[in-house]
C-alpha cells in the first residue's frame, strides 16, 4: 500500500462560532477538549451546553491526542482535490473523551491502519501554511 497519498486533502474548512477557538488552538499545535465546570464531563466537538448536566460553564483543557482505530476507508476515486492517488481517512475513538469518534487523515502512507490499533494525533497542513488540521499516525510503526 505504498501508493497512498499522505496528508489531508484540504476540502473546505468552515469553523463556526462554537468551534473557532478549537481550530485556533489546533493552529497553535494544541489539542484541546472542553471540560464542564459543573460536572467535569469532557466533550468534543465544541458546543456551549454540557449534554450530561445541561449547564453552560466550561473551560478548554489540553489533552493528549490519543485514541484507537475504529474504522477507515481507502478512497479510490476522486472525492475532492488531490493528486489522484488513493487516500485513507481514519475514524478514531478518542481516549480522553468517552463516546467520541472523530475523523482525520492517515499519516503513515506506507501502510493501512489496523483495527483497534493505538494512534496519536499529529498536526498537519500543506507546505507554506501553518498546521491547521489533525492527522493520525500509529503509535507502533
Amino acid at each position: 500500500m505504498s501508493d497512498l497519498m499522505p496528508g489531508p486533502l484540504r476540502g473546505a474548512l468552515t469553523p463556526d462560532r462554537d468551534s473557532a477557538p478549537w481550530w485556533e488552538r489546533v493552529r497553535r499545535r494544541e489539542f484541546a477538549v472542553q471540560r464542564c465546570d459543573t460536572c467535569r464531563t469532557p466533550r468534543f466537538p465544541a458546543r456551549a451546553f454540557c449534554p450530561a448536566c445541561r449547564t453552560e460553564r466550561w473551560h478548554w483543557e489540553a489533552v493528549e491526542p490519543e485514541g484507537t482505530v475504529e474504522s477507515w476507508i481507502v478512497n479510490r476515486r476522486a472525492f475532492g482535490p488531490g493528486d489522484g492517488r488513493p487516500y485513507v481517512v481514519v475514524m478514531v475513538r478518542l481516549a480522553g473523551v468517552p463516546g467520541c469518534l472523530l475523523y482525520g487523515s492517515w499519516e503513515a502512507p506506507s501502510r493501512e491502519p489496523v483495527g483497534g490499533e493505538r494512534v496519536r494525533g499529529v498536526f498537519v497542513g500543506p507546505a507554506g501554511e501553518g498546521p491547521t488540521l489533525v492527522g493520525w499516525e500509529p503509535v507502533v510503526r
Partner: protein
Amino acid sequence: MGYTPFSKDSGVSTLTLACRAIMAALDDAGLAPDDVDGLATHRVGDSAAPSLVGPALGVHDPSWHLDQFGGGSVSHAVVGQAALAVAAGVAETVVCYRAINARSEFRMGGTGRGLPVSPEVQYQAPYGFFAPPQQYAMYARAHMLRYGTTAEHFGRIAVTQRASAARNPRALMRTPITLDDYLASRWIAEPFRLLDCCLETDGACALVITSAERARDLRRPPVLVSAAAWGGGQSHLSGGPADPTTTAAAALAPRLYAQAGLGPADVDVAQLYDCFTYSVIVQLEDYGFCPKGEGGPYVASGATALDGPLPVNTHGGFLSEGYVHGVNHIAEAVSQLRGDAGDRQVRGAEVALSTAQPGYVLPATSALLLRKG
C-alpha cells in the same frame, strides 16, 4: 400511488416530474386534483416545493402542507405526518411525493453539489471525507472489524436484489449479476465497490393518504398505516451512543412495533433503505430480524430473497430499481400488500415494513409498518 418512469435523464423539471407522479397516483386511486387538500414532500433544496406543485395542478388552497427539509432519513416521517394530519381532521386527502433529478441535475453521490450545511462537516470535509459512500463505507468497515461481516455478505445483497429487479419492469438494472460480478466491480471507497452503491436516478413517486373509511370506497384495495415512528438519536458528538455498528433504527424499532402491536416475526416483506448494501445488513439487525452482528450470515442464508422467509427490497431497491429517496420503498410495500406486484409478488403478504435512511448521517430515522386493509 403513482410513478414516473425512472431514467438517468428525465429531460424535464422536478416540478413536471412531481405533477406527473401525482396525477398517476390520483388516477390509480380514482381521484382528481380537486379532491386533494394536502401536499407533502421532503427535499434538500433540490426539488419543487408543495407551494409550487399545488398551484401547478390547480390546487390553490390546500388546508395542510408539509415541506420537510431532509434526505432519506425523513422520507417515511413525511407519510407519518400526513397520516397524523388526516387523523386530526386537518386534511382529508394528502398527496406525498418526491420528485428528483438525482442523476441529471443534482447528484447525491458527492459530485456536482456543495457540501451540506451542518456544523459537523467542518470536522470531516478538510480530510476529503464528506460523500455518502465514504460515510457508509466507514461504518461498514467498523461492522466488519467487530462482527466479521465480509465483502461476500455485501455482495449477496446486491445479487439478491438484482434478481428481484429482473422481475420488475420498472427497474433500471434488470440484468442478473453474480457474486463474481460484484467482487470484480471497481473500488469506490474501500470496503465499498461500485455495486455496493445505489443508483442515482431521475424520477418521481407519489402516494395518496386518506382515512381508512374513505380509502375503502376508492379504486384500489386500501393499505393501512399501522405504525409510523421517527427519531432514534445516534450521533458522533461525545455523550451520545457513539457506536458506529448500530443505527438510530435500534432505538426506534421497539416503539414502531409497539404502536402496531406487532413484532419482527409478523413482518411478511420488508423494504429496507438501501443507499448502500451495508445499510440493509445493519437494519436487519436493528429492526430485530436477527441478532446484532449476524446480519451478514442472515443474508448469506438466502433469507432475504423473494422465496426466503423475509423477502427484502422486492422491487430491487435503490441498488437496482432506482433511487427516489425512500418513497419508492413505501410504494413497493403498498404494492405487495395490494397484491399487484406481478412476478415479484410475495404470496400472502399481510404486513410490510418500510424504512428510511437508518440515521447514520443525520441522527434520526423514520419507518412505517403497513398492513393489508
